[in-house]
């Protein structure tokens, strides 16, 4: 047998590993007994929720960090409105983001979880566009009942008579329509199904409006971006996405027939028409409202605000100050004027004032 020279014996591997383990455990325990909120410093703020608003929040977070307060870092995870409400309720994020107002049950749970009254702060308005993938079809008009029938599975092909009637003279492809929807709990779904419920008795009775409705048919994708991606990749698909995603993803969008009978395409102007014509609540603790199916003749029918959920009484006052400062910055004129570039619409000034007033009650 060959004599092989061994390396010098490693020092007490077992004892060393044990000591390391004990140290790790001690470190883990000591840091978890520190601040109960996420992040280890008041200048790291965590938020989660709406994918609808994600591009705007993430851009604002980055710009704020770069040009206003270098010490403040905001991490926003787009997991859907339902996920945002849930994580906020559990206290694992500092603010939530949702396009759909919390239900009574959710509100009770959130206020219990945060130990304080929870405010909805409207931040921006956006249009829910119907993006579709039919290369030859540069524009198409749909109306509410047809849209409901598409998602109910009654209208199956692009050249269905119902669609033909709305688009006289347009050569429609014979492909099957593949509806795409949100598989996760979504405020965008809430806005979309609220519209369908308002204009289609069949939809109202069979499915109703909800963040996570029981879809009759369709492909489920995760996040607004997931829906947009699925539409982008599937010929014949149609899906509801935040308008900015359609624009920046180079997807065609359908025009809809609104409550006044006019055909309107989603745009900042048609979104503004819906938000300008609405009446707003005055209770600062419940600034929630609907913009769906507006009666204004120039309005796009599926418009929704998006809210930030914030505890009125902040657990960590330094973090709370940073958070409210950032949110107020987002509501300032310069930032609001910049939202159309991403496909959103700014808050009308009276609504902006209400949001700022609500933020002033946060302490």
């Amino acid at each position, binding site marked *: 047998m060959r004599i*092989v020279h061994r390396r010098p014996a490693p020092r007490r591997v*077992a004892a060393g590993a044990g000591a390391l*383990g004990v140290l790790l455990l001690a470190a883990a325990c000591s840091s*978890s007994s520190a601040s109960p909120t*996420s*992040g280890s410093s008041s200048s790291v703020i*965590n938020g989660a929720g709406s994918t609808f608003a994600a591009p705007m929040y993430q851009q604002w977070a980055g710009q704020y960090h770069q040009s206003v307060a270098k010490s403040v870092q905001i*991490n926003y995870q787009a997991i859907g409105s339902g996920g945002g409400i849930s994580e906020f309720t559990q206290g694992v994020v500092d603010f939530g983001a949702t396009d759909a107002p919390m239900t009574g049950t959710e509100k009770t749970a959130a206020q219990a979880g945060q130990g304080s009254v929870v405010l909805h702060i409207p931040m921006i308005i956006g249009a829910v566009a119907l993006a579709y993938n039919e290369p030859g079809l540069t524009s198409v008009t749909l109306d509410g009942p047809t849209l409901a029938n598409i998602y109910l599975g009654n209208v199956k092909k692009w050249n269905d008579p119902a669609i033909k009637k709305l688009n006289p003279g347009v050569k429609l492809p014979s492909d099957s329509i593949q509806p795409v929807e949100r598989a996760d709990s979504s405020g965008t779904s809430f806005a979309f199904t609220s519209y369908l419920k308002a204009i289609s008795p069949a939809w109202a009775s069979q499915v109703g409006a909800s963040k996570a409705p029981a879809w009759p048919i369709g492909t489920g994708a995760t996040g607004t971006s997931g829906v947009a991606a699925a539409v982008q990749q599937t010929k014949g698909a149609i899906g509801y996405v935040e308008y900015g995603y359609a624009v920046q*993803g180079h997807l065609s969008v359908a025009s809809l027939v609104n409550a006044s009978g006019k055909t309107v395409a989603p745009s900042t102007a048609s979104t503004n028409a819906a938000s300008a014509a609405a009446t707003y609540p005055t209770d600062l603790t419940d600034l929630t409202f609907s913009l769906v199916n507006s009666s204004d003749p120039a309005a796009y029918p599926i418009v929704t605000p998006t809210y930030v959920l914030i505890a009125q009484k902040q657990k960590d006052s330094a973090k709370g100050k940073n958070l409210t400062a950032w949110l107020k910055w987002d509501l300032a004129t310069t930032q609001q004027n910049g939202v159309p570039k991403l496909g959103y619409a700014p808050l009308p000034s009276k609504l902006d004032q209400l949001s700022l007033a609500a933020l002033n009650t946060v302490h």
Partner: protein
Amino acid sequence: MTSLASRRRRDRIMTGTMIAAVLIAVVPLALILADVVAKGIGQLSLSFFTQPEPFVATAPGGGFAAGIRGTIKMVALGTVVAVPIGVLAGVYLSEYHARGPLATLVRFFADVMTGIPSIFVGIFVFTVVVLSTGSFSAWAGGLALGILMLPLIVRTSEEALRLVPDDLREAALALGVRKWRTIVSVVLPTALPGIMTGALLAVARAAGETAPLLLTAFGNQLLVPWTSWNGPEASLTLEIFTNSRSPFPAQQARAWTGALVLVFGVLVFSIAARTVATRRSRRAR
């Protein structure tokens, strides 16, 4: 009895079918690697490793620095947790009461645990760590990865230790060395290449995990400091996952580049593990 010609023909057909089967496995692998390289190489640059994602989602450039750092942190934690415990467990299985009831049970269930759905480990660590600390964290993510790595390291360490010839142990004992010292100074160093193989394979596996991290580390676009472990953490796999389900070409490009980095990293570890293993077996001859 069928004719020799038809039997030979069947044999040739079956050989052809076997070759076809090999192609069915190899061709997709080649395609995946080719696609990952072709679609990912465009964005590959130093800044991909040093810069986080741009805060404007549609902007090109930027990188997955947050995810790469997070993966390194959490895989390192998983390794630090799983390797000492796993190697010592392997020592027990190989050196003490190798046929005893505890050893048999542990060996059996370690094998079984290599097949746990990783999402399940994520659920467990979520209920135990995330809920009690009140936050997603790199601790939780690293712990989940460690739990996934542990069974693999236990079994590969045991195998490596068993391969150490008894002569070495007996020589040491005959010289009056205590048993634990024998293990630490003679057996473990001899088995080190085999143990390293197991550790490298476990690292490769942990680096590729996504599902458990969804529930424990949660993800983060910001570059978290190396010293900060208490908040949400990104991982390379999570960033690929999020960016791949996007309609924006810039994000899709980053996802492919991330996939290129990940696949390359995993392959490097797997090949390193294989090289260490073959070198060990050559030395033992």
